């Protein structure tokens, strides 16, 4: 590692951009691309035109937000309802970005650049960046992340564009498995990337609260499950934490 350090310090900005771009061949990026094939099949089944799916992939980027957006369109929700559902589901992006920004920036990094780069942050890019960025010299980190983020978004836009026509002709088993990849991938990656005990509690309660709220109030199920289940998980975890602190 030490012998390569000098070479890495001398790498040009383009070299660092390309080093980030190579992250497209990492396991998280490959799983994400398979999930995007699955998402593409969801949009085909929902009847959303190709151009809108590619547009959505580039401009929204976060996969959970897009799944909620598509579900909102499917249930012909109003713009306000869809906005609220997507906004609430994307709150998680704020602490993720806030945790990554101090790793990416130098005292000279302009805020506008960080605002632009933040668009490329979603679960996969975040996990990848938090893991790999500390090994990159600080003045090249933003470039490295830009290389990874831009490549990943562009590759998935192209992938969705190519695969859209094919997913309709997939054998039923393949189509079914690709659809299933999305929920299974989210379950594994949320559990795996959780850094706070409250996330485990919220995940478990949300899984039960979702169907329960769908049964009680199908129109507001996701919002109800999120607000109610999340508050319950937070209160429970807080109580557990304060009891542990008292007994300690």
């Amino acid at each position: 590692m030490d012998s390569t350090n000098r070479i890495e310090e001398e790498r040009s900005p383009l070299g660092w951009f390309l080093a980030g771009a190579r992250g497209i061949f990492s396991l998280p990026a490959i799983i994400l691309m398979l999930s995007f094939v699955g998402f593409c099949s969801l949009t085909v089944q929902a009847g959303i035109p190709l151009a809108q799916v590619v547009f959505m992939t580039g401009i929204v980027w976060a996969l959970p937000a897009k799944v909620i957006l598509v579900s909102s369109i499917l249930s012909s929700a109003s713009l306000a309802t869809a906005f609220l559902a997507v906004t609430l589901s994307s709150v998680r992006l704020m602490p993720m970005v806030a945790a990554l920004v101090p790793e990416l920036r130098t005292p000279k990094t302009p805020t506008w650049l960080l605002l632009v780069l933040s668009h490329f942050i979603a679960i996969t890019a975040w996990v990848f960046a938090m893991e790999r960025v500390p090994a990159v010299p600080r003045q090249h980190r933003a470039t490295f992340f830009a290389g990874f983020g831009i490549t990943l978004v562009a590759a998935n836009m192209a992938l969705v564009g190519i695969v859209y026509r094919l997913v309709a002709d997939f054998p039923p088993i393949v189509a079914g498995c690709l659809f299933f990849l999305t929920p299974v991938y989210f379950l594994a990656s949320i559990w795996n990337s959780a850094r706070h005990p409250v996330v485990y509690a919220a995940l478990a309660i949300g899984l039960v609260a979702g169907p329960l709220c769908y049964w009680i109030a199908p129109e507001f199920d996701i919002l109800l499950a999120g607000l109610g289940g999340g508050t319950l998980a937070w209160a429970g975890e807080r109580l557990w934490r304060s009891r542990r602190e008292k007994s300690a």
Partner: protein
Amino acid sequence: MSWMDGWWAYAFIAIAGWLATDIWRWLGVLAGNRLRDDSEALNWVRAVATALVAAVIAKLILYPTGVLAQSPLWLRLGSVVLGAIVFFAARQKPAAGIASAIAALAAGLWWLGF
């Protein structure tokens, strides 16, 4: 389905999709270092956000669209449970859990004649 036509669909996606997600990314940048990662308000926000995504996951598994809508519930739940068991047995490796859940689903669908 008027939302599908012309500029309105793109405006819908831009407002309910792009604006609704990038607002949080921008706030995240501005919060940056100053955000207290241990504040109770952030903990609550984190819990609500996670529960919301979990509810979406549960709905996708229990009420899928397309091909899986015709598959039996026990197969979908069984595949997820098997995936979870392998995930924890394999020291929480996402790839192991995901692969075994998908393999179980594929085997079940094939056996049922899909």
